[in-house]
C-alpha cells in the first residue's frame, strides 16, 4: 500500500476565544489515499469546509498536523505554502472562480503561467479532450454556461498534474445535468488518470460518484462509508441530522441543491455558526 496522498493527525481548528470559542475541527485524524475519490459530507457547520481549507494549505490549523504527501503543511512558511498549492494541489470551487478577463484557455493555463512553467502539450490536449472543451477555448467565462465554466475550472485544476485536487461543492452552483457531467468527469479522472480527489459536498448524489464518503459533525468524523450510494448517504445524513444540537443552520444557504435534499427538521434558531464559520475564517486572516 502506498502512502496516502494527504492525511491529518489530531487536526484542530478553533475560532474566537473564551465565551465565543467555536471548535470547527476537533482533533481529526484522517488519511486520503492516492487515486481515491473521497467525498466529505456533513451539514453546514460540521467542519467539512474547515477540514478542506486546512488540508489544502489555505488556512492554518490551531493544532495538529496536516500532510500533503510527506510534507507537514504547518511547518511551511507562506512562500512554502504558496509553492505547495501551486505545484502539488489543484482546486475546484463552488463558484467556479474563473478570471473573467481571461479566455478559457488562459484560465486553464493560469496555474502554469503563475508557476512560470510551460504546459505539456500532450497532457493539455488530453485534459481538454476529457473535459470536452476543445471548441470553447477562446471563449470568455461570461460566454460559457455554468457547467462549461466548471469544466474549465476542472481542467485548470488538472493541467498542472497535482498530487491531489480539492473540490469545494463543485456542483453547488449547477443544475442536475451539468452536475452529472462534472461529477462524471471527476470520476473519470480518478479512473483514467489515477487522480486523487477530495470533494466537499452536501449532495448525496455527488457523494455517490465517490469511492468513499466521510461524514463530519461538530468537527469530528462520525462515519466513513466505502463506495457510498445515494441512499446510503441519505440515510447517514438523516441520522446525523437527528443527532441534535451543535449542528445547525440551513444547508441550502448557498444555492438550491439538485436532486433530493437531506431531510430537514433540525431545531431552528440554533446559534448560527454555519454561515458564521466562513465569515469568521475571513476575519481571522
Amino acid at each position, binding site marked *: 500500500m502506498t502512502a496516502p496522498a494527504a492525511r491529518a493527525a489530531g487536526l484542530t481548528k478553533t475560532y474566537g476565544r473564551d465565551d465565543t470559542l467555536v471548535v470547527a475541527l476537533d482533533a481529526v485524524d484522517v488519511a486520503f489515499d492516492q487515486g481515491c475519490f473521497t467525498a466529505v459530507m456533513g451539514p453546514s457547520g460540521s467542519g467539512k*469546509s474547515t477540514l*478542506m*481549507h486546512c488540508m489544502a494549505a*489555505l*488556512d492554518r490549523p490551531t493544532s495538529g498536523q496536516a500532510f500533503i504527501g510527506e510534507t507537514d503543511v504547518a511547518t511551511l512558511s*507562506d*512562500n512554502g505554502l*504558496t*509553492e505547495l*498549492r*501551486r*505545484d502539488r*494541489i489543484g*482546486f475546484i*470551487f*463552488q*463558484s467556479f*472562480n474563473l*478570471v*473573467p*478577463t*481571461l479566455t478559457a484557455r*488562459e484560465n486553464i493555463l*493560469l*496555474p502554469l*503561467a*503563475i*508557476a*512560470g512553467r510551460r504546459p505539456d502539450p500532450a497532457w493539455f490536449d488530453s485534459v481538454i479532450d476529457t473535459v470536452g472543451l476543445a471548441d470553447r477555448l477562446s471563449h470568455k467565462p461570461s460566454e460559457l454556461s455554468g457547467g462549461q465554466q466548471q469544466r474549465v475550472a476542472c481542467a*485548470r485544476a488538472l493541467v498542472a498534474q497535482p498530487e491531489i485536487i480539492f473540490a*469545494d461543492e463543485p456542483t453547488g452552483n449547477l443544475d442536475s445535468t451539468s452536475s452529472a457531467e462534472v461529477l462524471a468527469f471527476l470520476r473519470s479522472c480518478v479512473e483514467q488518470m489515477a487522480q486523487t480527489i477530495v470533494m466537499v459536498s452536501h449532495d448525496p448524489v455527488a457523494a455517490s460518484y465517490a469511492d468513499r464518503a466521510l461524514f463530519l459533525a461538530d468537527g469530528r468524523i462520525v462515519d466513513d462509508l466505502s463506495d457510498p450510494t445515494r441512499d446510503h448517504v441519505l440515510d447517514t445524513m438523516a441520522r446525523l441530522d437527528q443527532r441534535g444540537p451543535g449542528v445547525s443552520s440551513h444547508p441550502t444557504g448557498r444555492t438550491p441543491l439538485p436532486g433530493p435534499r437531506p431531510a430537514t427538521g433540525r431545531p431552528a434558531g440554533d446559534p448560527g455558526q454555519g454561515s458564521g464559520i*466562513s*465569515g469568521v*475564517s*475571513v*476575519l481571522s*486572516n
Partner: protein
Amino acid sequence: MWTATWKSLWARRTRLLMSTLAVVLGVAFVAGSFIFTDMLKGSFEGIVRGSVADVEVQPRTDVAVTGSDTDDPLISSDMVAKINAVPGVTRAVGVITATGVYAVGSNGKALASFGPPQLGMAWTTLPAYGGQPGIVLRSGHEPRADDQIVVDPTTLEKSGYRLGDQMRVVTPDKGTIRATLVGTATWGTGGTAGASYIFFTPSRAQALLINRTGADRNAWTGVSVQTDPGADRDSVAQAINGFLPSNFKATNGATIADRVSSQINDSLKYVNTFLLIFAGISLVVAAFLILNTFSILIAQRSGELALYRAIGASRKQLRNSVLVEAAVVGLAGSALGVLAGIGVAQLIKTFMTTAGFDLGVTSIRVPPRAVVISVIVGLTVTLTAALLPAQRATRVPPVQAMTGARSEKLQGLGARTALGLTMAGVGVVGILVGLFGHPGHDAVWAGIGMGLVTIGVAIASPMLGRPVIWAVGRGYRAVFGEVGQLAELNAIRQPRRTAATASALMIGLTLVSLMTVFGASARASISEQVHQSLRGDFLIGSQGFKDFPAAVATDAAKLDGVSSVHAMSTAIFQLVGADGRIQEAQGNGQDRQLMFTVGGMKASDLDQMFPQKITSGRMFRSPGEVIVSQDAASYRSLHTGSTFTGYNSDKQKKITFTVVGLFSSGDGLSGAGIWTSQDTFDRVGLGSQDSFVSVDLAPGADREAVRAGLDRATADMPLVSVMDIDEYAAEQMAQVNQILVFIYALLGLSVVIAILGIVNTLGLSIIERTREIGLLRAIALKRRDIRRMITLESVLIALLGAVVGLILGVCFGAVLQRLLVDDGITVLSVPWLQLLIFLVAAAVVGVLAAVWPARRATRVNVLTAIATE
C-alpha cells in the same frame, strides 16, 4: 501571469481612467514647468547669442572714475577707428544701447511694462559671435534716414500700426519724438523675451540716446568687434585693452555670453522651482487619487486575488502584478502628461503675456530633460501611491477564494488617528517655535510645521472629519429625509475612502484659503501703510518705480493751487569693501547684502513725502552726508558717525557716505533706507530724474483743476501716472491681486485633480454597490432619489474637504501674517465672504462631480443588479 495582469488591467481601463488622468495632469504641470523654463532660456539665449559680437568693448563695472564729468561712460569715434586698426580685427563699430526707450501705440498707450527693459539702439550690420547673424531683419528694411525706425515684431503687432506709419517714441532725455516705421527685426534668431527694441540710425541714436553735455556728440556707449577668422579673440581683446581708456574694457564675446547665460540660468532656476512647487502640490493630490483608486480596486477584486493566491501565486507575484498595473498607469499618464505639458507651457506663456511679461515669438521645444524627469516623477508618484494598496493585495487570504466572502470589515481608526494627531501635534510645535521661538529660519520651521499639520490632519481625517459629517448629516436628514440619511451613511461606510477623497480637496483648499487670507492681509496692510505713510494730496509715480524727468516736478510746482512739491530720486549702489575694491554684482541673492538703494531729496523735504523722524544725530546738510533708517542701520550695522563707500556702475562713480543721523518711519514706509541730499547726486550726474513726486495743495485749491494740470504735465509720459492716496493704495493692492490670481491659477490644477478624485471614488463605489442600488430601486427609491442620494454624498465629501481645508488655511494664513509682520504685513484680514464663496463653490463642485456617477447609478437595471453575485 503577465498576460493575466495585462488583461485585468485592460478590463479595468475605464476604472483606471481617472487615475491616469490625475497622473497626466500632475506630470503635465511638471513637464510644462520645464518646457516653459526651457522656452524662456531659448528665448534669452537667442538674444545673447545674437547680440554679443566676437569681442565687446564695454564700460567697466569695477572701476571708478574721478573728476566732475557727469556723463555716462562713453567711448569716442577716434577710439573706434583705433580699434579697427588692431591686427585681427575685421571690423569694429560703435554701438549705442539705452533703456527706457519705448513706443506709443496707435491707441496712445505706452508699449511698456515694468518687467523687461525697453531698449533703444543704433542699427548695425555687424555679425554676432562667430559670424552668427546679429540683428536679423524680419520685414521691411533697415533705418536709412534719421526719421526712420525699426522695431521688434511684437512691438509692431501690439502697437496697432503698420510699416510706413508714423509712431511716437518716448526717450528718457529728449522727450517724445515721431518717426516712420520701416521694418521689424530681432537680435539673432531668438525671440524678445519680453523686451522691446527700437533701432535708430547710428547718428539718430547718438543724438537721441546719449546724454552728453559736451560738444562732441560723436561717441558711443560701447564698441562691437568682428575678428578675422582664425584670430584669437582673447589676444585681440588684450591688444585693444592696451590703449582703451581705463574705464572701458574689451572682452571675448564668449566670456560675456557665458556669464550672461549663467546669470539667466540662475534666475530661471527660481522660476522653475516656483512652478515645480505647484506641480508638486498637484502630484501630491494626484497621489491621493491613485492610492484611493488602487485601494478600491483591490477591495473589489479581493475574490480574484484570493483565487490567484489559492492556485499558487505568491504574495510577491500579486504585489508585483499590482505594481506593474501602477507602472503602466504611471507610464501612460507620464507620456500623455509630457504631451499635455506642451499645452501647459503654452498656457503659462499666455498667462505671463497677459500679465505683461511677453516672451515674444518663441518656438516650443521639449527638452529631453523634461521628458526624463517627468516620466521618472510620474512613475515614482504612481508606484509610491500604489505601494500601500499593493501591500494590501498580498494580505488577501487565499481561503477567501473558497468562502467568497467580501471583506467589508470595519476599519480600525485608532492607530491611524493617533499617528495623524501626533504628526499634527509635532507640526503645531514647529509652527509655535517658528512664531515665538525665533530660532532663525522662522519661516522654515513654520512651513515644515504647516506641512506636518496638513499631512497629520489628512491621516487623521477619517476621525477628525466626523463632526463635519455629523453636522452636514443633520442638515441632510432635516431637508432630504431618508435619502439624505442614506447619503450620509454611504459616506461614513468607508471612512478612509471618504476621508482620502476629501483630503485631496482639503489640500487644495488649504492652500487656496491660505493664499486668500494672506492676500487680504497683504492688501489691508498695504492700504494701511499707504494711508499712514504717504503725505501729499497727489502722488506722481511710474509703473515699476521707473525714473521720469525732473521736469514733471518743476511743472507741477508752477500750477495754480499747488502749495509745495516734493521729489525723490533714487540711485543704486554697491558696497565697496574697506580695501577699496569694487566687487562685481553677481545678479543673485548675495547681492542683497552688497547692493543698496539711496534716496535723494532736498533737506527741507524731510517728513514731507514719507514719515521720517530723526531719532538720533541730525539731518544731512553737506554732500555725502546721509540719514539711515533704524532698520537699515541695524541690518548694515551702521550708527551715527560711520562711513561707507558706494559705487554706482552707470556713472562709474564712488561716493563715500557719512551717517549723520538715524530716522524712524514708525510702522509706515520710509521710501528708502538711506537718504542723502539731491546735491550729493547732482555732483556725479546721478538723480537727474525723479522716481516719486508728491504734491501738496494750497488751502482752498480746486482739486480737480490741479489734477487736470498734473495730468497734462505727465501726458507725454505714458508710464507716469497721477494718483491720490486712495488710488495709489488701490494700484499697489492690484499688484497683490495680480500675483494672487497667478497663484490661484497654479493651485487650480490641484483642485481639478481633487474633483476628479471625487468623481472617481463615487464612480467606483457605485460599481461596488450596484446590487444595493438595484435593491433600493426595487423597494423604494425613484431614479431621482438615487441621483439625489449620490449627489448628496458627493457634496458631503466636497464639504468635508472644504471645511477642514478652510479651517487649516485660515489658521495658516494667520501664521504667515504673524511671520511676516516685520516685512510689512502688519494687519491680519480674513475675507469671510470670499471664504464662504469657496465653501459654496465646493458644494457646487460636489454636485458637478456627482453628475457622471449618478447617471451611472440611475442606469442600473434593477433585475440584473439584484441577480448579480
